[in-house]
């Protein structure tokens, strides 16, 4: 059970990072510069909204990937420390 929780804890940040990269990769391209000259502000805003959304999602995902990645790493170090402490008490 503990092993499964540790594996999930390690996989979630990786999945979030992949999702963030995918959001950026899948974001539509910026409208060409010469198009913008013939567009109203509203048309332009509508066109760039999905790109803004993709960047926002990527930023949020990467924030949690870093935070949860650190927690998972700390958890791994903690379990290692517990093993060391257990060995030391057994020797005594």
């Amino acid at each position, binding site marked *: 059970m503990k092993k499964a929780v540790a594996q999930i804890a390690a996989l979630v940040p990786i999945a979030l990072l992949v999702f963030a990269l995918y959001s*950026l990769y899948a974001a539509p391209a910026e409208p060409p510069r010469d198009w913008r000259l013939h567009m109203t502000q509203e048309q332009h*805003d509508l066109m*760039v*909204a999905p*790109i*803004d*959304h993709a*960047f*926002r999602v*990527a*930023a*949020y995902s*990467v*924030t949690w990937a*870093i*935070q949860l990645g*650190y*927690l998972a790493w*700390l958890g791994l*170090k*903690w379990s290692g*420390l517990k093993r*060391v*402490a257990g060995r*030391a008490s057994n*020797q*005594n």
Partner: protein
Amino acid sequence: MKKILFGVYAAICIALLVWAFELAVNAPAEMMQGDAYRIIFYHVPSATVAFTFFAISMAGSIGYLVLREKNAAKALAWDAWAVSGAEVGIVFCTVVLVTGPLWGYRAWGIWWAWDARLTTTLLLWLIYVSYLLMRRFASGAQMRTSSAVLGIFGGIGVPIVYIANRIPGQHPGPVFGGDRASGMAPEILRPFLWNMAAWLFWGILVLILRHRFELKQQAIAAAEAEQSLNA
């Protein structure tokens, strides 16, 4: 009892983060930047938390240097705060350095500019990374002393980053306490403050966990030293 209190605190943190996320998603779009401005809800709080924790690390470093010859046990307790503040501060500073370019690309059309704010933040991050590397690879009694000195230098970097925001460059000026044009619309300010509180609570939670880990590590190291002396 401590475990229950910690559990309650963790639950409050998660509830706050969910509430803050809900507010951030439903905040009105900004006139100039559309949806991309919402990165402010985790970029700015992360910077605030990082700088607060770097200040804690600096205080811990000063405490260690002052007490190391008078009271070794107390000095180690200060050192635990120093290393915890530095490490968790780096985590939040990394968030700042990753979300910043994502926001910058949408707002300015470029990922990075070598302007004062961005460069000083990167330098601050590098100082604290070198602090952790020193702690990881150096050994002996001098390790804590040298890293405490570096921790103080890092802490001095925090106000420099804050002042760098006022130097004209690519990065926008301060939103609060800047010129007359600075400030936030109340509809955006409310979710911003909730996000600020949520990330600060979360940061404190992670800091407590890291501090407890450091204390445990110190206890094991002390027990091992005692054991080898007795052998």
